[in-house]
């Protein structure tokens, strides 16, 4: 997993986030790199959603 994907996972472990909040936190990353990293996070199959549409890490 790329360092950016690992960072996103850590942020989601800390608290649920809207997708745009994750984007805001990584405005310095290239958009295409961010999308690839997000794809890695998605593929890890650990994401859930809360009632406001925020992404969160599913409990095991």
């Amino acid at each position, binding site marked *: 997993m790329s360092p950016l994907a690992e960072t996103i996972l850590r942020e989601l472990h800390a608290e649920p986030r809207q997708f745009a909040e994750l984007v805001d936190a990584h405005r310095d990353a290239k958009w295409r790199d961010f999308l690839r990293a*997000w794809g890695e996070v998605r593929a890890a199959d650990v994401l859930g959603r809360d009632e406001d549409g925020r992404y969160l890490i599913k409990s095991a």
Partner: protein
Amino acid sequence: MKKSFRDFLNELEKAGELRRVKKAVDLRDVSALVAQSREAAFFETLAEYPGWRLAGGLVSTRKRLALAMGSSENEVAMRFEASLDRPIEPILVGNAPCQEVVLEGEDADLTAIPYPLMHVRDGGPYISATCVVSKDPEYGRNVGSYRLMYRTPTETGIDLVSPSDMRLYYQRQLDRGKPLEIAVAIGVHPFEMLAASYKAPIDMDEYWIAGGLHGAPLALVKCRSVDLEVPADAELVLEGELLPIGWSADEGPFGEFSHITGDVKWNPIFRVKCITHRYQPIFYFLQMPWENDWLSAPVTEAAGLRALRNASIKPVAIKAPVGSCGYWTLIASIRKRPGEGKNALLALLSVAEVKLAIVTDDDINIHDPDDLDWALTFRVQANRDVIIVEGARGKHVDPSVRAWELGKGGLPTTAKLGIDATIPEGIPKKFYRRLEYYGRDRVKLEDYL
């Protein structure tokens, strides 16, 4: 002659309705920038995506829609409806601009296309301007418009919760445990978008309707990896399949055409196998909500006209107000015979998810809100002229149907309201004679100035 997406951009520019932006733009910012532009926007340089251009907000006003249709603003619906009576069969071509570049295998990577982020609470970047084609062995080809949320370089979510022919096709494949092949054309003329939005009978091919709108056949080309055909002049095509997983993957929220941030929905996943595009492609994104609303309006209006004519009622004018997103309200004036005010309401309320219908006589200008209010005030008795239909088909994005209480893949119902604002039977027309100024045709104010 059939016009292309690029022809429409040229028409907009000639009419002073297109603004070119030369400075390189970040895809995270394009939606907010288009929202600030009075004209349609054309970005000539995209950061990180050399060779790509991007256009948005093309039909965000009725004026620009009318320009696309080649008609006046009030005649858009009649123009669309007339084309339904003369569909034109598409032709198949061997070589196509949309396949000038072919990306297969590992190169079929969704991050290689300029996927924009649109709204604050969206579940991800979205492709919003799509013509999605699919086939069913029994019912044939279908073209619809469905949004795609980025998930991974090879997968997107797709909003398939509302009733549609493609939803039925998918369900039938799901019952067989098989995927449904689809192809997604992006960057096509508004006629293809309008045809895709029209709820045609299941055995009617929307490509034929688009041909009728153009007055010339669409040129289609066979896809590279699926047994489907797409418009040859599309800017970009995604080919692949809807996985047979049912309504089980999170999709949304998305800034909906109802002007509301929607909810998380449960939907299938689209897996991309091949991406093709033109040289120097132009990515088109539909700016929500206005562009979607203005594209919805003529489709809803044409369906209303058709429903009225099928009920042997003579419509004079029709309007799907943009305040109802061009979708949920229909107002029509008719040349009425006894009883037809109510018949017209029943016909209009049968259209898709229309939940408010108002019918007036043909002396009312339904495009003038004051004239419409006048008819509602003096021609309506609530105990006689209002009908309510409960338990009709609803749409998820309307919060009042409480779709969140449904299970995954569940379909909501709605109540529908009809108001007959025609002159009631039994009231002589003389009671509705408008006041007239004495001497109106004889004296002129300018003679006294």
